[in-house]
């Protein structure tokens, strides 16, 4: 599990720090895939299936299509921004390492009091029952969000009538 969490953090760093947007989008897909493995290991197959199909699949496709519709910068522009970019992102690895050290330092004194993982799970069959029977308000909200998204796409991608 620690390796998977480390993989999550490394791929998130790659998303933010890699210069090429296509590679950054692929790194985000890798991040989603690692999160899917974590969800499966924690016995959440429903959420894992959604994460894999929607986040690692659909969102990556949307990102890559959008990136391919935009123009790449010229070599002169890239060289011009390279130095400034390095200067802006040099702090990030240091911040991550500092936060990691702080987290471990805060955790270590309480290590003896922590209970081991492995909390009893509810029956797998109850998961879908909770989703359909207890969370109807969420379902309604999701339907409204999907309709709002469709409306938004129709408005934003509408061709202008003006000549």
């Amino acid at each position, binding site marked *: 599990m620690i390796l998977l969490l480390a993989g999550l953090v490394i791929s998130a760093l790659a998303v933010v720090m890699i210069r090429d947007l296509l590679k950054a989008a692929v790194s985000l897909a890798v991040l989603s895939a690692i999160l899917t493995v974590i969800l499966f290991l924690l*016995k959440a197959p429903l959420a894992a299936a959604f994460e894999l199909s929607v986040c690692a699949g659909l969102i990556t496709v949307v990102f890559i299509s959008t990136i391919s519709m935009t123009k790449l910068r010229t070599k002169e522009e890239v060289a011009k921004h390279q130095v400034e970019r390095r200067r802006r992102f040099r702090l990030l690895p240091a911040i991550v390492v500092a936060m990691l050290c702080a987290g471990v330092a805060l955790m270590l004194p309480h290590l003896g009091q922590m209970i081991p*993982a492995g909390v009893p799970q509810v029956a797998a069959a109850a998961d879908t029952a909770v*989703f359909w029977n207890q969370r109807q308000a969420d379902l309604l909200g999701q339907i409204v969000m999907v309709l709002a998204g469709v409306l938004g796409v129709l408005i934003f991608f509408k061709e202008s009538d003006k000549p």
Partner: protein
Amino acid sequence: MSLLFTLFLIGASLLIAIGLYGIVVTRNLMRILLSVEILTKAVTLVMIGAGYETGQMGVAQSFVITIIVLEVMLLVIATGILFGAYKNNGSLMTDKLNNLKG
């Protein structure tokens, strides 16, 4: 609190730090969207860890699915806005989005 949940909290806080840093520092609209995605992954991680900790995976999974739907809708609408900005300005850099400047 279990050791696993503590590790999840540390991992999620690192993801949130990376995402916020990306949003604050970068000037590319697409990369800002990618950073927002990292933030939602952190929320997903905490949510599922909390479900595992309390033994209520059904509720946690339904929340995660709701988050994923919201995430996709956010992404689609933001992509539409981004595409419109690109058509108007020919660039995805935020420092060139100054059409409303007096």
